[in-house]
C-alpha cells in the first residue's frame, strides 16, 4: 500500500449510495460494500499497523471519521427506511372504523327505580330516612286513621282492591303510601322525618294513562315548630333538585288527612313550547285528628306530609306517553334507560 486513499471521496460515494438505497436490502448491500469486513475502508483501517508511522495518525483519524460518517448515514437511512416499512405495513392493515365497536352488555335500572333512587338521595341529604310498610294493609291504617271514614267512596269495591277472607278487619291492597305515616307514628316518637316510597293499588282498568298498580312516595315531617312555610320550603327544594330550577306553585286543595292542603305544580314547557303548570304532588299540614289517632299531642307537635307519583314523574321526564310500557318487561323499552 503506497498511497493514502482519499477518505473524503470514499465517504462521499458511500453517503451517496446510502441515500440512493431505497429499501433495507439495498441498504445492507451498501453497508457491506462500504463498511463490511471486506470493504476497502475496513481493510485500510485494519492494516494501519503496516503503514509508515508518519501516516498512521492521519490515516487513523481520517479513516475513522469517514467510517463514522458512513455509519451515521447508514443508521439514519435505516431508521428512515424502517419507519417507511412500518408505515406501509400499518397502511396495509387498514380498519373500517365505522364498523360497530365491541358491544358491552348494558343493563338498566327501571326508570321508576332511577327516579326513586334520586328522590331518596335528595331526601337522605336533607335528613329524611326511608321508611317502608306492607302493601297488604288494614282499612284502619289506609283509610280510617287518615280521616277517610267508612262509607267514603274511596273505600268502595269499585275503587279499592280488597283481600278475601280478612276476618277481624277490612284488609286491602293499600291505595296510597300514606298508611306508612300511620305505622311510623305509631312506632316512633317525634321528631319524625321520613319518606316512604312504595307500590300502591287502585282498581282502575289498564289503559294508556291508568294502571291498577303504580308507585308513590309519601313524605312526613313532625317536629316542634314546623309550619306551612317549611312544607313549602321542603317541597320546593326537592322538586327543584329533581326536576331542575323551575318555578313551583302551591295552591289550596283538599285531602282528608291534611289541613291546610295544597296541590303542588311545577312550570313545565311541553314539546310545542307552551309553558303551563303541571300538577306533580299533593301536600299539607298533618291534620290534628291524624295526630290524635296515633297518640301525638297536636298542641306540641306540628308537621307536614306530601305525596307524589313516581310513574308520573318518570313519564313526564322521559316523555313516556303510555303507562303500560312501564309494566311489560319489554327490553326494547327498558334497555333505553341504560
Amino acid at each position: 500500500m503506497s498511497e493514502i486513499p482519499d477518505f473524503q471521496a470514499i465517504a462521499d460515494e458511500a453517503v451517496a449510495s446510502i441515500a440512493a438505497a431505497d429499501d433495507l436490502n439495498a441498504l445492507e448491500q451498501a453497508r457491506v460494500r462500504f463498511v463490511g469486513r471486506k470493504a476497502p475502508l475496513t481493510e485500510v483501517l485494519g492494516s494501519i499497523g503496516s503503514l509508515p508511522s508518519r501516516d498512521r495518525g492521519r490515516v487513523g483519524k481520517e479513516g475513522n471519521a469517514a467510517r463514522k460518517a458512513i455509519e451515521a448515514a447508514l443508521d439514519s437511512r435505516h431508521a428512515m427506511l424502517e419507519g417507511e416499512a412500518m408505515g406501509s405495513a400499518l397502511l396495509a392493515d387498514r380498519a373500517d372504523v365505522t364498523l360497530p365497536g365491541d358491544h358491552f352488555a348494558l343493563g338498566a335500572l327501571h326508570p321508576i327505580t332511577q327516579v326513586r333512587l334520586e328522590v331518596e338521595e335528595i331526601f337522605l341529604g336533607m335528613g329524611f330516612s326511608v321508611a317502608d310498610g306492607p302493601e297488604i294493609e288494614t282499612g284502619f291504617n289506609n283509610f280510617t286513621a287518615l280521616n277517610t271514614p267508612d262509607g267514603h267512596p274511596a273505600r268502595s269495591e269499585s275503587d279499592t282492591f280488597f283481600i278475601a277472607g280478612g276476618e277481624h278487619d277490612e284488609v286491602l291492597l293499600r291505595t296510597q303510601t300514606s298508611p306508612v305515616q300511620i305505622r311510623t307514628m305509631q312506632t316512633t316518637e317525634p321528631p319524625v322525618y321520613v319518606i316512604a316510597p312504595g307500590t300502591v293499588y287502585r282498581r282502575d282498568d289498564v289503559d294508556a294513562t291508568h294502571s291498577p298498580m303504580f308507585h308513590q312516595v309519601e313524605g312526613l315531617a313532625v317536629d316542634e315548630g314546623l309550619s306551612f312555610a317549611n312544607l313549602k320550603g321542603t317541597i320546593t327544594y326537592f322538586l327543584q333538585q329533581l326536576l331542575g330550577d323551575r318555578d313551583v306553585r302551591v295552591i289550596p286543595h283538599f285531602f282528608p288527612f291534611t289541613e291546610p292542603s295544597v296541590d303542588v305544580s311545577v312550570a313545565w314547557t311541553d314539546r310545542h313550547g307552551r309553558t303551563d303548570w303541571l300538577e306533580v304532588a299533593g301536600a299539607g299540614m298533618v291534620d290534628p285528628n291524624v295526630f290524635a289517632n296515633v297518640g301525638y299531642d297536636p298542641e306540641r307537635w306540628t308537621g307536614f306530609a306530601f305525596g307524589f307519583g313516581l310513574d308520573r314523574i318518570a313519564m313526564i321526564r322521559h316523555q313516556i306517553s303510555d303507562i303500560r310500557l312501564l309494566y311489560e318487561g319489554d327490553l326494547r323499552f327498558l334497555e333505553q334507560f341504560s
Partner: protein
Amino acid sequence: MKLPLEWLREQIATSLTDEQIAERLTATGTAVEKVITRGIADTPSNRESFLVGKVLTCDQHPDADRLHVLSIDTGHDEPRQIVCGAPNVAVGQTVAVAIPGAVMPGGQKLGKAKLRGVESLGMVCSATELELADGSDGILVLSDDLVAGTPLLDALPSPGPVLELEVTPNRGDCQGIHGIAREVHTITGEPLPALDLSLPAEDGPGQVGDHVSLTVEATDLCPRYMARVLVDVTVGPSPDWMVRRLEAAGMRSINNVVDITNYVMLLTAQPLHAFDLDHLAGPAIVVRRATDGEKIVTLDGQERTLGTDNLVIADAGKPAVIAGIFGAEFAEVSGSTTRVLLEAATFDGPNIIRTSLGLGLRTESSARFEKGQPRELPPYAMALACRLLTDLAGAKLVPGVLDAHEQSPAAPVITLRHQRVGHILGVDITADESAITLERLGCTVDRGADAHTVTVPWHRVADLQREIDLIEEVGRIHGFDEIEALLPRVTARARLAPEQTIVRQLARRAAALGLSEAISYRFVPEADLDRLGIPVDDSVRNVVRISNALSDEMAVMRRSLLPGLLRAVERNQSHQRRDGGIFEVGRTYIPAADGLAGEPEEITALLFGAPGARGWRQSPEDVDVWSATGLGIALARAAGIEADSAPGAEEPFLHPVRQARITAHGHRIGIAGEVHPAVLQAFDVKGPVVIVTLWIADLARQRPAEPRKYVDLISVPVSTRDLAVIVPDSVPASRVLEVVREAGGDLVREVEVFDHYDGDQVPDGHVSLAVRAHIADPGRTLTDDEIDAVTDRAMTALREAVGAVLRS
C-alpha cells in the same frame, strides 16, 4: 263545574277582569282547570268583520257543481261576492258573513280566496263554525228582521267565557254560582247581595195540604223535605237568556219548568225536583226506603232494581224518584202538565253516594247531594224557583208549604288563637285580617286580644268545625303564594336499613352485569302455580286472594317473581328477541294468621338464550346452570357476601338435576338453576332460560357487619400450583376445593377450578378436575419446598378424603 262568567257577574259586581277572577279563584282553592271561550271573540276588529248579510243573488259556480257564487249585501256600498258550498243557501236569506280579517273561533284569520277560479271575499258561516252549536247542516239562517251590516256580535250575543272549576269535596257550597260569588266577595270585599227568600203572591186555590200529603218515613236519610204546589202552569220553551246560561253551564234545555229547577240548582247548589202532581197517586209524597227488589223505570227508559239501602220519593204506590238522583218517567213534567209539585229536600250524602255508585248513575243533582247540603238551603231555592215559575210559566202558587224538618245541628262556635295561626302557617297574619276574612265568608266574629270567638254560618257548618279549619280559610285567602318557602332545620338523622342498602347494591350490580330491571304486576293468575308445577299440597299454594279482582289474570298476589319474568321473556321472544337478561326486585305475598301477609322481598334475575355482548365478531354462548350460579355469586358479592353454589335444591320449577342452592357460610341465601322445560312450555317460552333468586332478608343476615378487610396479595409473592385429579363423579367439585383449602391451612389463599373433563380418557363414573391453588404467607416469601409441601399435603388429603387419583 262550569261557571259562565257573565252569570257570576250578575251575582256580584266585581272590578276583577276575567283573567283576574280565574287567577284568584285558583290561588284561593277553587281551581280553574280551563277557561272555555265559545263563539267569536268580542274585539273591535271582529265587530267589523262578522256582519249580518242578505243574499241578493245566488248563481251556480261555472266549474263546480256543489258551489254557488253569491252576491251579498253586507251594508257596504257594493255587494260582496262570496263562493259558498252550503246546500241550503238561497236568495233572500239573512245570513252570518265573515269578511277577510275576521278571526274565527278556532283562531284562524280569514283572508281572500279563489275557489275554482272564482274570487270569494269572505265566507257565509254555519252555526258550528261560529261555535254556537256542536253540529249543523249548512249555513246559519238568521231572522229576517236583522239589518244588513249589523255586527254579528250584536245580533247573536256571544256566550262569553266559561270557567271549568274543580270544586273540592269539602266545598258543597261552591257547587252553585252564588257560592263562587261569595268566594269573590271574600277575595275582594266587594258587596255580595244575599239570596232572596221572598215568595210570589200565594194566589193559588186552597192550601197545599188540600192538594197533596207528605210523609217522611226515613228521616235519617232525609233530614228535610219541603214541597209546594203550583197550578195553572204553562209548560213551554224557556226564554233565550235562560237557555244560553244553561247551555253555557253544560246542561240542555228541556222545558221551562225543568229548566227552572236546573237553573236554580246551578245558582244555589240546591237540587230541586218538579213532579206532575196529576200523575202522583194519592196524591201523596212518601219519602221511604225502597223495598227489596222494587223496580223503577227511570227517565232514560231503563228499569232499575232497588233495595232497602236506596231512598225513594214515592207516591201512594210506587217510587217516582230515586231520591236526589233520577226520576221516573210517569211523574215527570210534560207538555200537558198544569199542576206541579216542587220538591226542595236534603238527603244523607253517604247514602246518595252508595246508591249512585250501586246503580252506576251520577247526575248533576246527585253530585251536589253527595257532599251533603245544609238543611237551611231549601227555602232559598224554593223561593227563587217559585218566583221564576210564576214569571216564566204563568204559575199560581198555592198557599202554604209542606216542610218535614229535622233539627239542624247547632252552628259551631270556635276559638281561633292568633298565635296558632302563625304557628301553623309560618307567616304573620294580623288578628284583624283573619277576622275580616272569616266575616266575609259569613262567620260571626267576636274579636279578642288573644283569640277570636267565631260562629260558623249554616252554609259552612259541614267543613268548618275546628280551629284548624278556620286557619286554613285564613291562610288560603291570604294566599299560599305569599308565604315564604323555608327549609326546616331537620333534627333527625337519616339512614337506610341494611335491607334497603342490599337492594340498591344488588340492583345496581345486576344492571352493571347487563341485565335490565322489569316491574311486573304483583297480581297474577292463580294458574301460575300449576304452570310452575307446584304440587297441590305445597304450602306455596297458599295465596293472598283479591276478592274484587279485575280479572282471573289478576286474581291472586304472587308467590314468585318467576312467572312475571317468564311472561316478559315470552313477550320479548315474540318480537324476535332471542337473548337477554332481566331482573326484578320485589315482594312476594304469604298469607299470615292475622289476615295480613308476610311480604318477603327478593331479587330474581333471569338470563335467556345467549345473552351478553353480541356483535359482528362476538357471539356469546347459551346460558346453563353455571351461568345462573355465577350470576348469583356475583350479585351476592355486591352486598359483600362470599357465596357458593351447593347441591340440594329441589325446586319443582327448575331442572331436577341442574339446580343449586346459593349459600353463604353454609346458610341458604338463594337458588339458581335452569328453568324446567315443562315450565318453559307452560309459559310458551323457548329455552335455555336460567334464573337465580336471592332473598333479601337472608342476605341481610349473612352480610358482614364490618367492611371488607384488605388482604395483602401484593407485597408478598403468590405462587400457583396446579393439581389435576380424577375423582368419582359423585364427589362435588366444591368438596375437592374444600379439601385442598383445608389441607393448605392459612397458606392457600384461593383455589379455583380451571378444567373439568369427563371424556374418553377418564374412567366411567369419574371426572377429571384440574384445580389451581394460590399459595402465599402474608408475612414472608415461601420457599419452593414449603410450597411443594402444601401441594403434597393437599394431594394426600384428596386421596384419603375423596379417593382422588393424580392424573398423569
